[in-house]
């Protein structure tokens, strides 16, 4: 007996969109106690499907055909009053970004009891007791304190637990989870996944789990549906889809996932491209006449070197200081102590004017492909600004820029276009071309592929690998994703709370980690067991 049966669901997009339907002829069933993973890249219509069930479609987007049977009723066509009664009580949802999904001005306890109040259940005292039970059930520490806490006082993982507690309040039969772990660190992610598995077992809910990450799928899914551009390309039991994918697209997606396969050892040169010595950066916030400011040691006495032609991976969870280290190395942030030696010059000690002349030595590829290009500047301008400021004649800079656009796989005619005409992956290529245009001694890639879909991610990684061979590039590759780091890097440095925990070759780190924290990180990578099955180490 299935909890939810979606039949031939079609959702229309407003005129002027890139395709007529967000979701086209999608059918699926979720059984009681099962976890169905809906997998797809961005724009595949997986979130639209979930939003349609909850009645959360944006204006202009509407269900055109099909039905969704839940408890023998078509939830897509219920009157609004019935939908309201259904939401929260029988179908609950958790979202990707727990910070924005929670009301910042309400205590956690109040937000949970509000669910009961909205459905008119229980008395005030009972509600509070139930809220405490729920907080305990989602394993939040110190329930008495959490119930009085505001969202900003919790960590990302704790917030997501609070969201789950709210969703579970009325014992829904179906839980829809829209990328609930995407914004979380790997270790937190694995805890949340465990919690969802656990709750499913205990309560026998059906779970519709939307994700883009096949690693997560391997961890929790009973059934899998792969979506692409609004259509289902493949569905079946998890083991079958993961191990013997039938459709070409699924196979390509699976092939694009960074695997545990380690790159070949390469001989590294002795001459360093970047030397960081005893680097320190402390952020101070608050404080006044009588109160000491709060200090955060973002980077605490870190020393490392990147050799010429080497890719050094810098791995850590959010707040580990890896981005601050990267920004200090290009001196977008001025360190409080220590040296940043690039080709013998200490960037940390230069005056503003001297620094400007040395800027070209270290370049950066940024995380967000949408924010890192000026929306009002043509691509050619973005790439040639730097070389021209360095004194290279305009004609030569333009010729070089066209050449570079060709090298990164965009074609020279991309030069005269504006950023909004490109996709995320293409923009990241532009970012790489911009960095290369300066002939840098070192490129710092700050989460450069984190915002991209897996297949695009694989392409950009291929490009970086290719460039490393061709141009003998040195790269400091900052990422939170160990799997990605394993693909590209020669050595890996692990950071935690501003300190360098461990540094070693990829093989050392992956096969023989020394520190507990590194072991924890490795164990938390979703789908680790499945990876190992696929590729015997």
């Amino acid at each position, binding site marked *: 007996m299935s909890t939810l049966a979606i039949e031939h669901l079609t959702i229309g997009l407003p005129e002027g969109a890139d395709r007529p339907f967000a979701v086209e002829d999608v059918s699926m069933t979720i059984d009681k106690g099962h976890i169905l993973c809906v997998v797809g890249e961005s724009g595949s219509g997986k979130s639209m499907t979930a939003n349609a069930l909850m009645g959360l479609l944006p204006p202009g987007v509407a269900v055109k055909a099909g039905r969704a049977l839940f408890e023998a009723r078509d939830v897509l066509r219920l009157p609004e009053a019935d939908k309201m009664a259904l939401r929260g009580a029988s179908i609950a949802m958790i979202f990707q970004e727990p910070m924005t999904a929670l009301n910042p001005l309400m205590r956690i306890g109040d937000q949970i009891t509000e669910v009961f109040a909205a459905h008119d259940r229980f008395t005030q005292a009972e509600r509070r007791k139930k809220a405490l039970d729920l907080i305990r059930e989602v394993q939040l520490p110190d329930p008495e304190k959490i119930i009085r806490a505001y969202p900003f006082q919790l960590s990302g993982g704790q917030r997501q637990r609070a969201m789950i507690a709210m969703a579970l309040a009325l014992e829904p039969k179906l839980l829809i989870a829209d990328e609930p772990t995407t914004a979380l660190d790997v270790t937190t992610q694995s805890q949340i996944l465990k919690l969802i598995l656990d709750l499913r077992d205990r309560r026998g809910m059906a779970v519709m789990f939307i994700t883009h990450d096949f690693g997560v799928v391997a961890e929790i899914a009973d059934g899998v549906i792969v979506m692409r551009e609004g259509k289902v390309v493949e569905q079946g039991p998890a083991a079958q889809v993961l191990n013997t994918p039938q459709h070409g697209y699924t196979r390509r997606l699976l092939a694009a996932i960074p695997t545990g396969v380690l790159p070949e050892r390469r001989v590294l040169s002795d001459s360093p491209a970047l030397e960081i010595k005893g680097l320190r950066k402390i952020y101070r916030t608050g404080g006044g006449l009588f109160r000491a400011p709060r200090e955060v040691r973002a980077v605490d006495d870190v020393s490392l070197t990147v050799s010429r032609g080497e890719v050094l991976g810098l791995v850590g969870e959010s707040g580990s200081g890896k981005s601050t280290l990267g920004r200090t190395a290009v001196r977008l942030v001025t360190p409080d102590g220590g040296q940043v030696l690039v080709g013998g010059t200490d960037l940390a000690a230069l005056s503003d004017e001297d620094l400007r*002349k040395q800027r070209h030595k270290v370049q950066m590829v940024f995380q967000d492909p949408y*924010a*890192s290009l000026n929306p*009002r500047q043509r691509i050619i301008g973005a790439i040639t600004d*730097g070389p021209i*400021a360095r004194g290279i004649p305009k004609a030569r800079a333009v010729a070089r820029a066209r050449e570079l656009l060709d090298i990164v796989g965009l074609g020279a005619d991309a030069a005269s276009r504006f950023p909004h005409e490109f996709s995320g992956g293409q923009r990241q290529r532009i970012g790489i071309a911009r960095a290369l245009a300066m002939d840098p001694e070192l490129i710092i890639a700050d989460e450069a592929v984190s915002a991209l879909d897996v297949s695009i991610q694989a392409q950009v990684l291929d490009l970086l690998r290719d460039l490393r061979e061709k141009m003998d590039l040195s790269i400091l590759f900052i990422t939170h994703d160990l799997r990605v780091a394993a693909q590209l890097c020669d050595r890996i440095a692990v950071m935690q709370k501003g300190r360098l925990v461990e540094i070693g070759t990829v093989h050392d780190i992956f096969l023989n980690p020394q520190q507990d924290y590194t072991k924890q990180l490795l164990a938390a990578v979703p789908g680790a067991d499945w990876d190992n099955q696929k590729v015997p180490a």
Partner: protein
Amino acid sequence: MSFWKRFRTNIGAIVGVVLLIGVIAIALLAPVIFEHGPWQMVQRPFLAPFAVDGLPLGTDTLGRDVASQLAHGARVSLLVGLVSTLVALLIGVPLGALAGFYGGYVDEGAMRFTEFFQTIPNFALAIVLVAIFEPSLASITLAIAIVSWPPVARLVRAEVMSVRKREFVDAATLAGLSKHRILIRQVLPNTVSPIIVMASLMVATAILLESSLSFLGLGDPNAMSWGYMIGAARTVIRSSWWLSFFPGVAIIITVLALNLIGEGLNDALNPHLSRKGRA
């Protein structure tokens, strides 16, 4: 959707544009349509509208053609509105941009200076300024500009502060561009949309300010303006309603047109903030 497409779908904005074009046309063609100037006495005073052929809006207390006065008044209103807004932008944009971009002491200094102007009531300051200078078109325009730039500075500062934190600004820094070049070439172009919207609304406010000043008799004595007409007709408002009614309507239409355009621009330039489709 392109900017024009979005703007075109906004009926209010199109109405605004049509009205404004009408007012501009009348202002430009005033000397052609009316052979006698606004100061010239053409008939006996206090003629009601349509009482005599050729004088559709009647005559004023001195027998001057109200229609001609109205058309010539449009020139003054539009000119003062436009020029004073430009001057206000010239003061506010650089100041706000510097404050937002450089922060620290520059920001402190610029903002305290701005607050100094903001603490004085607009209209009172404008009166004082016009009274100190001789009342003339130039001094009125300048006075209006001086009282209306502080909101511009604040807006530009806020916009610059938010754009400054975007990654492409970091990228430009790494490209070795100098700070003022980053400000002018990278940051400022991204703040243009809200400035345009604000400017269109400021023109409307400036026209109102000019009318108020002229109403109080602080207008340029050599320029016919709507505010002056209402002011002069104040004493006879009960016997000759048309003398204050028509210039009043002219002010309302022009200001309304500018506000409609401003709102249309706002929706078209910032589609994500559009108030439509969001009940």
